[in-house]
């Protein structure tokens, strides 16, 4: 795998190989600090991120790489430099991989066509967030052994969610049934053709789910009339304590973060016994080690 730009198009064997490798890293495994020793990984975050950036950084360090952390604040982007000029300049300093987070869908794909080093998509616009989907799948696999025949319910702003897209491809490829739930305004056309089941009624599908993934309601969507208010959204699609009661006893609750507590997920549910939210974060480093190892081979 030369780049990791998205989950779409990956085969089950590719995904399982990455997850297997992540498993080895999670268990400590042999010392990996020589794998990328003396090499540089560039973290290019054109959009804010805490979790993903630090997680990639820790993964790179664990493999012995140096990390160049680059953010738009105070950079030449504010002086009008184009994306390609920025990345070509950074590439000229010799990194083996560029980890890119960008607000435009497809930005990593554009970069990948114009650089020689590896490109890893750390979230592009409303397109994909492949490392998040891999760590979500990893978390579920560790709990369940296999995703085959399981039902994962993803709730919220599907239209604008890169996490939903990547998870749809990833979980479906691994044999799970993915149900996408949200108001009609936030369910874009054609999702069924990627294997998803769609519903607008959270209450109807809750009892079937083996895991529920709540998506963040982004504040910038308010005022665009996708839904009347956060309050109404919460009432219809928030995973509150009463709804959590109706889940299967062993069903898991996930969230890619950052959470709006009290909007898409109630604090008691986020912190409750079903929640694997912090496990997701903890698994992120191992999964990203596996990704970096793979693309830097």
């Amino acid at each position, binding site marked *: 795998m030369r780049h990791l730009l998205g989950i779409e198009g990956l085969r089950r064997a590719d995904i399982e190989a990455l997850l297997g490798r992540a498993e080895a890293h999670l268990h400590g495994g042999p010392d990996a600090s020589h794998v990328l020793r003396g090499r540089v990984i560039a973290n290019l975050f054109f959009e804010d991120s805490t979790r993903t950036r630090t997680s990639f950084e820790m993964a790179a360090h664990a493999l012995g790489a140096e990390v160049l952390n680059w953010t738009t604040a105070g950079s030449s982007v504010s002086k009008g430099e184009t994306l390609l000029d920025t990345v070509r300049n950074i590439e000229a300093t010799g990194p083996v991989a560029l980890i890119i987070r*960008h607000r*435009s869908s497809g930005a990593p794909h554009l970069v990948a066509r114009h650089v020689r080093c590896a490109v890893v998509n750390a979230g592009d*616009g*409303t*397109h994909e967030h492949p490392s998040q989907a891999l760590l979500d799948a990893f978390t579920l696999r560790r709990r369940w052994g296999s995703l085959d025949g399981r039902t994962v319910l993803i709730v919220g702003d599907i239209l604008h969610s890169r996490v939903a897209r990547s998870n749809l491809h990833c979980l479906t490829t691994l044999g799970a049934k993915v149900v996408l739930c949200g108001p009609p305004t936030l369910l874009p056309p054609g999702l069924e053709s990627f294997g998803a089941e769609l519903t607008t009624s959270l209450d109807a599908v809750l009892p079937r789910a083996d895991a529920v993934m709540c998506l963040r309601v982004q504040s910038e969507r308010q005022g665009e009339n996708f839904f009347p208010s956060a309050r109404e959204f919460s009432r219809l699609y928030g995973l509150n304590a009463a709804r959590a009661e109706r889940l299967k006893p062993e069903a898991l609750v996930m969230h890619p973060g950052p959470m709006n507590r009290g909007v898409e997920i109630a604090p008691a549910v986020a912190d409750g016994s079903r929640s694997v939210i912090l496990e997701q974060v903890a698994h992120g480093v191992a999964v990203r080690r596996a990704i970096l190892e793979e693309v830097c081979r």
Partner: protein
Amino acid sequence: MSSTILLSRGRVVDPRNGVDGVRDVLVRDGTIAEVSEAPLEVRDARVVDATGKLVLPGFIDLHVHLREPGEEGKETILTGCMAAVAGGFTAVVAMPNTRPVNDSVLVSEYVKAKAREARLCHVYLAGAITKGLQGEEMAEMGALVGAGCVCITDDGRPVMNAGLMRRALQYAQLFNLPVMVHEEDLTLSGKGVMNEGRTSTRLGLAGIPPSAEVAMVARDMVLLEETKGRLHVAHVSCEGSLRLIREARRRGLNVTAEATPHHFILDDEAVGSYDTHARMNPPLRTRRDIEAVREGLVDGTIDAIATDHAPHGVLEKQVEFDKAWNGVVGLETALGLTLSLVREGVMSLQRAVALLTDGPARAFGLPGGHLAVGAPADITVVEPDAEWTVDSARFFSRSRNTPFHGRRLTGRVAQTWVSGRLVFEDGHIKESR
């Protein structure tokens, strides 16, 4: 060069005059002097053997962005005219969204002067409907007509203000001027950058629903009926629009329409992996819309094939998809793409030729578009079976933004004659022009 030219033994296809057969065409002093089934013997003529070739009225493109003044890095009037004649076009209508906008006699005169200097094809002018294309105040239509504008349009931008649009349709009747419209309701297209559908969902790109176009066409049909004005719908992209236009024509409204080659060849899957050369407005739609556009071309709902030739450089195209500018160049690929419809059996050669010649000439009331005696000797000679591969690096246009780079096309321009002057031949602009 002799001012008498004899194009001998070519297959003349002249839809307006119902001609389709081997003819000799005699040109004298820039006009058609004779069209004869029997071979002509003319002593002083320069004889061009057109055996095996198509001899067609020069093509007319109602929708071209020449970019000058203001964006000469993308195209100039000269390079745009070179691209036009290389594509077989002997006349183009230059859109007003230059910098400054063509909303004045001054800009009109500038474009005309540059076109005269280029001395390649006829350049007709489209003036702005509103000052600066701002959609607020009408530009001086009478002055623009006086300066030679053949239509008015805020092309690239819709006239969102329905009241203003209604007045423009009324006022333009003073000059019997077609009002050309880019049909888009901006509140429906929003932040959209491509057609809304499976591909926009897959790519996580904001979608433009067909209603953005269709709702505006519906509004304008209502305004047209009420005002009895004259409307030309630019670059029709979807099925719903065609249904409305067809119905309006049936009821006798004065509406004409054009479609672009990209809208009758490509669907939104051409965006592939964020290919900005497949970004245009209106966006590429679905297979079903392509079929609807083709049906409209065949049944006469659409009058003209127009390219919406829109040159952009790498600064506008080698960027994130949502930051890329809309538009593709089209002058040099239009013929081959149109002829592909003939090869596929979608339409007859006669209909294809009509859409490039008679149709656009009638829509805007332009001279040319046919080869009757006395008509201007604007003639395009085509090798119908010549195969070639589109290589954007070899375009005469200054820009390379085409989604058709690398495509095999059949049918190539052998010669382009404008007012009896040979301006393009076998891949070269004629220096003697």
